[in-house]
């Protein structure tokens, strides 16, 4: 298990009900962590619609998560 900090924005923040949380997980990739959180919190967006960022940079969903990482799941964007 590793401990990571997850920050939520927009629709995920509303569905989770908090801006951020620290949690222990057995997930080893952002994609696996998203699936775990989606099942727990009933997020409506499927994993393939969400991008991942770790420590403020975009990463592949299959990249390795490490102890203390700051993880953000990015719903489809809509600036402009």
């Amino acid at each position, binding site marked *: 298990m590793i401990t990571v900090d997850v920050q939520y924005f927009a629709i995920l923040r509303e569905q989770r009900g908090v801006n951020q949380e620290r949690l222990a997980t057995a997930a080893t990739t952002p994609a696996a962590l998203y699936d775990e959180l989606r099942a727990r919190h009933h997020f409506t967006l499927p994993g393939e*619609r969400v991008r991942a960022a770790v420590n403020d940079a975009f990463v592949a969903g299959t990249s390795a998560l490490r102890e203390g990482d700051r993880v953000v799941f990015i719903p489809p964007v809509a600036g402009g």
Partner: protein
Amino acid sequence: MFKISATAIDVASLERTLGDPRAGACVTFEGWVRNRNEGQPVRSLEYEAYPPLAQSEGERILAEARDKFALVGAAAVHRTGHLQLGELAVWVGVTAEHRGAAFDACRYIIDEAKARLPIWKKEHYASGATAWINCATRGEHSGEAAIPPA
């Protein structure tokens, strides 16, 4: 210069920062809050950003525009917060020796900004309902890249 701003965008001061005697063309784009989207009357828009990544991605887009086009200067600002109809949500300004590069670069920056910046928009409708744009789980796909394979 790229910035995420929680307060009103000061267009006059941004245009002054672009002033340069080498520039013969200045093209600016303003994105305004509109009263209708896909047939629904819109009352206001709420913008939320992931600031550190929006900042770095915005700077990357401006750097790409400078690489691709013969620019003198480029700047862009995107708002966050709850905006009312007619308010300025995004501003892009570019200068170049000639108009062609300025038009092309301005278009490039706003198109990339809309597609790539981690910024989200929630529409508040006249009916009282709200919706995060592009986040519906039915209907049209946003076209966003999914979590890509390694």
